[in-house]
């Protein structure tokens, strides 16, 4: 199966006030050297279900669905992208606060949608 890689890099500037400005920058050349966390979305789970990152360190979430359209949303950081089948969507995040945060699917995907979440742990 031909797999399309859709590079849609959103630079998310996250702050405690939860006001996020995000700009989409077309990818040129090699991907940024930050840590990349690959996330697979499927009915009704994210894999991995727990992700640990460091406060202040950039991380790129590379999110792909293996079955249907899902949402990948981190409300506490103002991050929201789609998880698309056979496409990888990237979002670059620099978390500036530590804590346990919910990652949720915000695209209703069937019975079990309410159970579709993961945990982001931002460590000092």
């Amino acid at each position, binding site marked *: 199966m031909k797999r399309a890689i859709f590079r849609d890099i959103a630079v998310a500037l996250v702050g405690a006030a939860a006001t996020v400005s995000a700009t989409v920058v077309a990818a040129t050349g090699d991907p940024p050297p930050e840590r990349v966390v690959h996330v697979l979305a499927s009915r009704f789970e994210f894999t991995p279900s727990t992700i640990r990152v460091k406060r202040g360190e950039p991380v790129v979430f590379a999110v792909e669905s293996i079955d249907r*359209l899902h*949402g990948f*949303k981190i*409300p*506490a950081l103002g991050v929201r992208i789609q998880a698309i089948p056979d496409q990888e969507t990237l979002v670059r995040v620099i978390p500036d606060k530590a804590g346990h945060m*919910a990652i*949720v*699917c*915000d*695209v*209703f*995907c*069937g*019975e079990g*949608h*309410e*159970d579709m*979440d993961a945990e982001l742990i931002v460590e000092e």
Partner: protein
Amino acid sequence: MTIEIDRREFAGLAGLAGVAFVSGLGLRTGPAAAAAQDFFFVQISDTHWGFDGKGANPEADTTLPKAIAQVNALSRKPDFIVFTGDLTHTTDDGQVRRKRMAEFKAHAAKLVVKDVRFLPGEHDAAPDRAAAYREFFGTPNYSFDHKGVHFVAIDNVSDPGAAIGAAQLEWLASDLRDRPRDQPVVVLTHRPLFPLYPDWDWTTADGDKAIDILMPHKNVVVFYGHIHQEHHFMTGHIAHHAATSLIFAQPAPGSQPKRTPPVAWDPAAPFKGLGFREVGAKTGTAKLEIAEYPIKA
């Protein structure tokens, strides 16, 4: 300005919010009550017809009929009844979806009051962008006037991403544009328009845009469902009231790590947390009265 307040505080702000609470245990009777209101309507929400119980409601197939019987037994009949979404429980199978909608509609037809309005929930509409819903219940968003009050039904579920969408927002703005700014407006919808608890997907993606459109109007109240519990919230001068469901109660926002499991069925208190609501209005004022009716075992 946003405020979250509990029911007792909310009752104390009746003049500010334009809403008063009354006890819901059958007090809407007699000529005095009738004189106090010009009309009332009933809100029923989250019936989830087709849900198999799964321990959350072993009486899943009797709760809706019980509610209908209770509404029919009201000594004073409502002018109309509105179901604010999740009429049926979701399924991937389009034939099953339509079967459930047909069964639900057959139950609703037993209501003595024949002016019955419907809105979809995500369970009804998200899997097929309201294709089946439209076959049975018509257009998901609409407006109507009743005794001086303008009612607007907003669809925030047919888009599985829980967005109202630019076209519908334009329709909403156009619908309200030429109305007097002090005309009472009642908004009916399924999901909260404000970010009640985004970690549990209790929000509408572009609900802030709808609230911006509503804000110039002085007397707006929103009735919605989705969260399976009574909840009261203010965004500026706009009051938002969530309704209990007819299937299972859900935990209070943030009270547990996840929104599941729902509140467990209590055999000692069957149907606890389930019910419907009366909303009474008085012509010439923007004041509404809300009465909550629990389902009787």
